[in-house]
């Protein structure tokens, strides 16, 4: 139902599924850049102490890492157009070491930035309606969304308009910009959770109700050192109450969340301390007391924002599917890539293609400026100039004609972007780890590279099937190891890098937190240990059973033996 109900887009809006800025939005962004320029000048002149500057730079996405500043640029709900992608490539070339890194929250990071350059970088981003607002700091962060939104066959409702509403509402929010801790919201419009709704501070699942859009609300999920699956707070929240209810939820958190200990400051700790019922009572009391008319989200507002979204005109030739089938029969390598790297589209003759940023032995989520440019070109040629970033650190072209898929795949091959491993063991998530991060215990990237090289054989990968490996360099869990079918956590043992394995996690609708398998392993045995786990799985699985399901069926003992019995 998604595209059909979209209002006719205003003239001049490109057919890309994100909000098109107008002059007022651009003026706002300009003011924001000038504000930051002023703040950087005050910092460089010493008027602002580092302590005072820190929250201000963080609210503009500027982190201080191990070796340099890192700038995290927001990609709201993961949607970019080609023009924006080319500007990101420019920034990588001009101000960084010619590459960028896509994150698990649909943002892009530049790792080698000079403080003095950041106002100019932000000004260049503003020329393509991009920014780094609230990509870090104790505020409401970039709202993440399903990478197949508006395209997926299994979707009930395109959640991007509501993601945009939340983006606008949370931008420089007067009350919620100095929360106890960062605050992450994800929104999905499909019953198949691809946004990890239950691992967010607030997770929203949008669906059509009897009188318009309604939301199921989850709260208090998260990873970090205290992984918790979110509590199901309420069902069928009417669209017009969306902002009011979120205001109430976050106000309760702002008032009662802990501020004495940063490790206990996330909303998940508050929800656990009050209990789901206790928290719900407080939220309901606030919701009942507030001026609901003021925070009402009327259908006209939703319609006005929807009108600034582009919609692709989908009209594939009637033989598109047939021609794709023919191309698959003629080319086994292409056929494999289609099996792993595509997703069914709601419109006949179309398909969504996933571009893997996980080449054999490569660094998950990294892309060179040449690759960014190539993706921009291919998006223009094959998918209405629209590009999506997934929380798995890959890129998606949402609306590709099935009869053109083979040509796309050939072009991707030329750009080194045709790895056929989506959802497979090579599709690894890894945090920056000790190569960049000052909090790290261990290097996540080399482990990811070694695993990716070890399992490079595409036949082997496909035989192993759906298996998600997620790696974090420390307990902060930026690599989501708790939610990996196999999680790998870097730990420090007397100054040496060790890795702890967890099994059985999932970020999907069957959300679960992985269980520790046994004692941590030194780096050189970790890759072997994963190979033993995989071997054990291949021996014991039933037909079509995923690794996760074999683990859930048989329990840890078998896998423990596979790793530790030989040692």
């Amino acid at each position: 139902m998604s595209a059909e109900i979209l209002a006719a887009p205003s003239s001049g809006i490109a057919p890309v599924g994100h909000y098109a800025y107008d002059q007022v939005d651009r003026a706002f962004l300009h003011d924001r850049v000038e504000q930051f320029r002023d703040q950087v000048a005050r910092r460089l002149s010493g008027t602002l102490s580092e302590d005072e500057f820190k929250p201000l730079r963080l609210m503009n996405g500027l982190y201080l890492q191990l070796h340099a500043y890192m700038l995290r640029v927001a990609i709201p709900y993961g949607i970019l157009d080609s023009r924006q992608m080319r500007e990101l490539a420019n920034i990588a070339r001009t101000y960084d070491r010619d590459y960028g890194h896509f994150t698990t929250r649909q943002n892009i990071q530049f790792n080698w930035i000079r403080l003095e350059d950041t106002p100019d970088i932000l000004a260049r981003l503003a020329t393509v309606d991009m920014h780094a607002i609230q990509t870090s700091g104790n505020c409401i962060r970039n709202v993440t969304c399903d990478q197949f939104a508006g395209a997926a066959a299994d979707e009930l409702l395109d959640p991007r308009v509501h993601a945009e509403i939340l983006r606008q509402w949370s931008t420089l929010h007067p009350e919620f910009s100095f929360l106890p801790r960062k605050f992450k919201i994800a929104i999905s419009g499909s019953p198949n959770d691809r946004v990890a709704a239950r691992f967010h501070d607030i997770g929203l699942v949008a669906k059509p109700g009897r009188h318009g859009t309604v939301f199921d609300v989850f709260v208090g999920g998260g990873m970090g050192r205290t992984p918790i699956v979110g509590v199901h707070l309420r069902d069928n929240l009417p669209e017009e109450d969306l902002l009011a209810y979120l205001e109430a939820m976050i106000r309760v958190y702002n008032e009662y969340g802990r501020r004495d200990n940063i490790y206990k400051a996330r909303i998940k700790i508050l929800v656990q301390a009050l209990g789901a019922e206790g928290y719900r009572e407080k939220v309901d009391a606030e919701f009942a007391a507030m001026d609901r008319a003021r925070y009402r989200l009327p259908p006209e507002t939703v319609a006005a924002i929807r009108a600034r979204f582009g919609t692709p005109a989908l009209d594939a030739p009637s033989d598109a599917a047939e021609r794709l089938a023919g191309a698959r029969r003629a080319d086994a390598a292409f056929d494999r890539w289609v099996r792993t790297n595509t997703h069914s589209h709601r419109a006949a003759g179309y398909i969504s293609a996933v571009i893997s940023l996980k080449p054999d032995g490569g660094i998950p989520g990294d892309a060179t400026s040449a690759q960014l440019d190539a993706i921009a070109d291919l998006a223009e040629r094959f998918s209405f100039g629209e590009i999506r970033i997934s929380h798995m650190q890959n890129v998606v072209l949402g609306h590709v004609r099935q009869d053109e898929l083979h040509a796309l795949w050939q072009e991707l091959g030329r750009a080194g972007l045709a790895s056929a491993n989506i959802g497979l063991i090579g599709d690894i998530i890894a945090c920056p780890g000790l190569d960049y991060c000052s909090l790290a215990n261990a290097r996540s990237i080399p482990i990811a590279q070694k695993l990716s090289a070890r399992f490079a054989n595409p036949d082997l990968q496909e035989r192993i099937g759906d298996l998600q490996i997620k790696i974090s360099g420390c307990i902060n869990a930026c690599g989501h190891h708790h939610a990996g079918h196999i999680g790998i956590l870097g730990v420090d043992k007397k100054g040496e890098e060790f890795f702890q394995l967890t099994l059985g996690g999932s970020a999907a609708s069957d959300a679960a937190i992985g269980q520790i398998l046994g004692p941590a392993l030194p780096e050189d045995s970790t890759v072997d240990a994963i190979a033993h786990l995989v071997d054990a799985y291949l021996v014991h699985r039933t037909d079509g059973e995923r690794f996760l399901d074999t683990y859930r069926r048989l329990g840890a003992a078998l896998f423990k033996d596979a790793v530790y019995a030989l040692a």
Partner: protein
Amino acid sequence: MPLLENGRIVEDFWTTIGGDELLPPTGPVIVPLDRLEDGLARPAGEKLGVALPPDAEIAVLRAALPRLALVGVTFPTFRDGRAFSQARALREHLDFAGDIRVTGRPLPDQYEFLLRCGVSTVQLPDGADPAVWARAHERFTTAYQPAVRDERAEGFGLRRFLA
């Protein structure tokens, strides 16, 4: 310490009373929350303000509110954003129409947020440059969400003009 209202320095008529200082018999005073009773014991015509600590619930002022001309909220550090919620709840839940004054250590970059949450005056921290605060107030002309100031809508959607 200079007092800021609408981006300008104004005169401060109030006297802030510490924990065990004697209350002057007349004149506007701000008492700490735990001395609210002492303040209320003064003649009804004498202006009274109360300083709220960040962990206090707004509801404790409900009964006394008709007698209060000022409520103080505070930032122990700029990172502690509870005062934003206190100010907004005062305006929104209790319809408080008096002065909401900020003390402590807010940053100028928070000034617009404070105003939009219903704060009326800011006691500037030591060493603050009022010009930087005034500039912060003029920085933005639009905002993207409802706030207690009931700003005029700008164009379409959620946008509104900042006053």
